């Protein structure tokens, strides 16, 4: 079975001499929920731009479900839906017309597209706005409109370039659920995001790119295993006056008298809890101090 996306030795040098991609190779399996992460200017947008035919590559190859962009461009494009980072629809067109036009560009006549358009408008909460000009929508609605537009031709591979940038927490959660639902229904998803908790919550496999090179490309589980240290905040019932003596664990007090402990790879929290119980210290709640993926990301890209 062909990979949903297969990239080989992809290079891109812009006219100003900037080498954005230095021969990256990448595979995304069918059905995956894949994150492509990297700091600004790392090469994410260039990679996705080449896959979407918006950027000309310098060399290398890209295949979408086995269709080579150089020789089977139309077939490759039929498999692909793209949700870009910036709003890129005609702001003066009506919501329904934007979707109907996009379906037409994929050879789907208006009567045939109607059911899909209506379903997407309902699922993405845009049905009541179907007859208004796109410019009157809120930022979150515009993002959902771009998702609906990308799905109107039933693509097998969906690229989401920072789909939840600038949307509120509630809406972000509902968009996460929508993305998980369409992934479960069989659509392969490639996501870029600056919210690393989003990648950690949604994705099964992750690639980290920086300086035009892939630094990591593995499963989320394997990636998180590479963390050597994780810090937890333990809220205690009675504020502590001094740091308790915990064997093999570095601990600190917070200003509120709670405990902050560093757990090394291979250590367990059971040991810490056991010692705290022996010392008569009751823990009422616990949370990780920072996003685990974020720590790893920073350590790789710094």
């Amino acid at each position, binding site marked *: 079975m062909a990979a949903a996306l297969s990239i080989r030795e992809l290079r891109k040098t*812009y006219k100003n001499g900037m080498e954005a991609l230095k021969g990256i190779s990448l595979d995304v399996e069918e059905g995956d929920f894949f994150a492509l992460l990297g700091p600004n200017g790392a090469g994410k947008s260039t990679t996705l*731009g080449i896959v*979407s*035919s*918006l*950027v*000309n590559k310098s060399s290398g190859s890209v295949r979408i479900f086995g269709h080579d962009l150089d020789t089977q*461009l*139309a*077939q490759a*494009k*039929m498999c*692909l839906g*793209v949700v*870009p980072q*910036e*709003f*890129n*629809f*005609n*702001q*003066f067109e009506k919501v329904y*017309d934007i979707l*109907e*036009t*996009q379906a*037409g*560009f*994929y*050879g*789907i*006549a208006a009567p045939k597209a109607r059911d899909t358009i209506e379903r997407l408008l309902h699922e993405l909460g845009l049905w009541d706005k179907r007859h208004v000009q796109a410019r009157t929508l809120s930022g979150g609605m515009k993002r959902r409109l771009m998702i609906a*537009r990308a799905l109107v031709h039933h693509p097998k591979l969906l690229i989401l370039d920072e789909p939840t940038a600038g949307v509120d927490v509630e809406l972000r959660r509902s968009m996460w659920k929508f993305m998980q639902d369409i992934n479960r229904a069989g659509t392969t998803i490639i996501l870029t995001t600056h919210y690393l908790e989003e990648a950690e919550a949604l994705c099964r496999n992750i690639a980290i790119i920086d300086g035009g090179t892939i630094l990591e490309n593995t499963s989320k589980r394997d990636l998180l295993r590479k963390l050597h240290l994780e810090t937890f905040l333990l809220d205690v019932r009675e504020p502590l006056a001094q740091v308790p003596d915990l064997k093999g664990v570095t601990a600190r007090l917070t200003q509120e008298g709670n405990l902050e402990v560093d757990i090394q790879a291979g250590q367990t929290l059971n040991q810490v809890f056991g010692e705290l119980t022996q010392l008569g210290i009751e823990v009422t709640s616990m949370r990780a101090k920072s996003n685990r993926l974020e720590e790893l990301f920073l350590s790789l890209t710094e």
Partner: protein
Amino acid sequence: MGFRAIWVAYTTLVTKEVRRFMRIWPQTLLPPAITMALYFVIFGNLIGSRIGEMGGYRYMEFIVPGLIMMSVITNSYSNVASSFFSTKFQHSIEELLVSPVPNWTILAGYVTGGVARGLAVGLIVTLLALFFSDLRVQHLALTVAMVVLTAVLFSLGGFLNALFARTFDDVSIVPTFVLTPLTYLGGVFYSIALLPEVWQKLSMANPILYMVNAFRYGILGVSDIPVGAAFAMVVGFILVMFSVALYVLNRGIGIRH
């Protein structure tokens, strides 16, 4: 994409383009109607009555074909130039670029949109002209063929302009500094027989002269130039400009990084 899917994509693009210029009709259809009505009143009626005959016809009758052609030229050009540049500017061109629509279909769609606007304005101006003159078309097929080919040619010109344009200024430079002078000097208001010999020869290098005269021949039956040469030239220009536009599109110049 199969033929049926390409046809759907083409009609979708044309519908989008026609819907665009109809939606903003106060900017696209009304101004040329008002401008041409003023030309008819001032040049045709007030000044024309003192000029007398030109090419064997009343001055008003002489300038009507030229003014219709002038409105077709400027509107087909500006429709494609502004519409395609706006899609670049707003990045909505990406809707087309990520889709499987072949480049020649994109080009054909935009050109058809430009032709539709050019002909729509041409029709409005023709209807207005009926209030001022008694239009009797001598060669209907030739007249229609020339106006359609001219609209195609200038739609292609507008498309090329928009492809290379980086700012809105770039879209207005060609119409202001090239199209308008060539149109005014293209025999819209006078027969080149009135000019000194050297200017007559120079005028023959102006392609718009051929189109205006061929169109005038279709309506009035008089022309300063051989009509066959006009058709050959227009068709030749269309083939060259279509090929250039398609080449530029395929290379992604002006639309892809």
